[in-house]
């Protein structure tokens, strides 16, 4: 029995290697750096748990939300949108040509949400009371309540969507068939749920018109957040596929570069369209709220950097890449757009918040806050690699028919 377990462990977890071989195979410089980042993150987590938010962060009564909400939640969830965009494209619009991107997209959504919520636990003062929210203490008038519930539901949905790959790995054919059947329904509900809470993250700030800078505050905040999550999701697929096709090249049998480029260009078309719509809405909002006067201020310049440098410019670059069939340009622009979404979320959460404050009273993250967030990102990447190396994420499982 013990031998049996051991062989299962060796086969499934150690990729068929002996303990010593496996340890040797993971002792790479990259893993060493990741391990170091994770250790630092864990030290900060322990420090936060023992000493509290005051010593661990730069948060104050004036800045109740800082880097952990801005980066881990607002940025993290926006960048975890690939499951939403690809799920919609393939399962609802029937764009089957993209089905190769679906499993990586769902995995990144699943891990993105799980690790965002994990990081959030350290920001919550009484993290151990999360069940109150789901169980019996319902604040139905709160946007945050909607988000809390939607996160929970969406993680369940992502697990269902991902579980066919899990059961293929465990070789449990019956479970796999069952979950494969319900996965499409999970995807459909996932689209509704994800759309709801992506917009709700913007909706959170509707409550603070006096605190958020007028250039960022808008009645369209939920629409902006949803739209930008859509192109963030598409661009994350471009970015991830660029990275994973480099890193996991060995897993891709009969990989066709021309086909991959064509799909990347297809994604670029969608990104360009959603970026243009977003840009037009942004300008419309600027005109509608008559905020032109703010443009000629420090905050205005920063706003223009965000909207022109990271929305209009990538939109034009995507359009140009699509016209000229330049997949490389589209990949680069994917990175640029993702960076722009990160900038936008941090602007809303930190930079434009309490904008009337003098610079001396403004919040900036403490090193521990950044260390914890980066540690969680490193954990996510390690978990992603761990799963991709073991399960049929990048390719179809040889023993099973295609799930799509």
């Amino acid at each position: 029995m013990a031998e049996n377990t051991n062989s299962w462990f060796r086969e499934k977890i150690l990729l068929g290697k002996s303990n010593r071989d496996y340890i040797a195979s993971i002792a790479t410089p990259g893993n060493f750096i990741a391990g170091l980042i994770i250790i630092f993150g864990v030290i900060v987590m322990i420090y936060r748990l023992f000493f509290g938010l005051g010593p661990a962060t730069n948060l104050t009564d004036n800045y109740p939300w800082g880097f952990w909400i801005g980066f881990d939640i607002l940025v993290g969830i926006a960048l975890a949108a690939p499951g939403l965009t690809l799920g919609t494209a393939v399962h609802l619009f029937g764009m089957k040509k993209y089905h190769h991107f679906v499993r990586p997209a769902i995995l990144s959504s699943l891990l993105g949400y799980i690790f965002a919520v994990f990081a959030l636990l350290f920001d919550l003062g009484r993290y151990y009371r999360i069940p109150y929210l789901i169980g019996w203490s319902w604040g139905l008038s709160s946007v945050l309540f909607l988000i809390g519930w939607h996160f929970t539901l969406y993680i369940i949905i992502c697990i269902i969507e991902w579980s066919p790959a899990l059961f293929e790995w465990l070789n449990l054919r019956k479970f796999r068939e069952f979950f494969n059947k319900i996965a499409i329904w999970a995807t459909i509900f996932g689209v509704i749920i994800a759309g709801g809470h992506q917009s709700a993250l913007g909706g959170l700030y509707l409550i603070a018109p006096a605190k958020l800078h007028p250039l960022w505050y808008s009645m369209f905040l939920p629409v902006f957040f949803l739209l930008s999550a859509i192109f963030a999701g598409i661009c994350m697929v471009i970015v991830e596929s660029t990275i994973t096709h480099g890193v996991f090249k060995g897993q891709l049998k009969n990989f066709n570069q021309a086909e991959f480029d064509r799909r990347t260009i297809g994604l670029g078309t969608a990104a360009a369209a959603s970026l243009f719509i977003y840009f037009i809405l942004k300008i419309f909002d600027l005109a509608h709220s008559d905020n032109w006067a703010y443009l000629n201020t420090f905050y205005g310049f920063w706003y223009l950097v965000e909207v022109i440098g990271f929305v209009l410019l990538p939109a034009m670059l995507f359009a140009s890449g699509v016209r000229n069939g330049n997949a490389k340009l589209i990949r680069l622009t994917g990175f640029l757009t993702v960076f722009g979404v990160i900038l936008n979320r941090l602007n809303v959460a930190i930079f434009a918040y309490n904008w009337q404050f003098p610079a001396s009273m403004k919040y900036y993250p403490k090193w521990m806050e950044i260390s914890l967030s980066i540690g969680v990102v490193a954990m996510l990447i390690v978990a992603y690699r761990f799963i991709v190396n073991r399960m049929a994420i990048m390719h179809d499982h040889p023993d099973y028919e295609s799930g799509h």
Partner: protein
Amino acid sequence: MSINRREFLKRSLTIAGTSLLSGGAIAHAANNPDPSIFSTGNTANEKNWKLWVEKSEALAPVKYGVLVDTTLCIGCRRCEWACNEWNNNPNRPVKEFEASVSQQKSVFNAVRRMHAGNFTVVNRYISSKDGKPIYVKRQCMHCDDPGCLSSCFVDAYRKAKNGPVVHNASVCIGCRYCMVACPFDVPAYEYYAPLNPQITKCTFCFDRISKGSVPACVEICPAGVMTFGKRDDLLKLAYERIGMRPDRYIDHIYGENEVGGTSWLYLSSVPFHEIGLRTDIGKTPIPELTKGYLIGVKMFEIVGAWPLVFGAYYAISKARKKANAGHESSAETEGEGHGGKH
């Protein structure tokens, strides 16, 4: 010399230690020492919540309020002392509070806000009219339609029938969204409690006023700045005062309509934004700001979901038919089947 050096080392090490080990909250406190930031273990909010649970049904629906006439305040800060005393917040001898007004270097040199260990603060502003100091007491405004209440995702706030907004610490998860939502920056947080941090705020002395008494700050005030009474009566009184002395007051009662009206009302001799009361917060109750969105998203999810579900069902069954009709046609050009075997 050696003592001096030792003393110097000790001090610089303390300063270095404080700035290394602590974040902005302490750094902020170092310029502006306010020990109430570090306060933990507040009991007043929980106590008042329990009392509210007991009494809420029996309360008469008469909204009380307090009228604060900032032109009368002498800056003695006794209200701060009395508040700390009554609510068991960390306190100092009352003389230290009273001394501030005559000190060259005092807490009045910086504008303060409420922190974990104080529910009320008095700030000093210089009048644009005559250059004299104006003292302004701040505390929770006890909104008629409170933003904190609507923002709370575990429903920890209640507006008592007689006016106070009370907080239920026993369900609070510590998300601090109420601090984002509050237009008056009232709720504070026990950042230095690692295990059981609470939101703290003024309770309007619910325990006192529901027994027929007045709030602790109102009771101790030696200058008659605050008048406790029914909100409607207070508004009449405020209009009377403005009418009788239009030279003394500006023609505005802060809190009458701000964010839909508040229980605490203010009179002033200069525009309110000059004495730290924000005039850009509008008349719309804060909960209204998110209500439309919440209805919208729920409508989308309930109404919009069905076309999506049926559309998808249609698409799936069509694909299945196609797959049954012939595997070649569904396999397309990539040599990969979708929904079909290969």
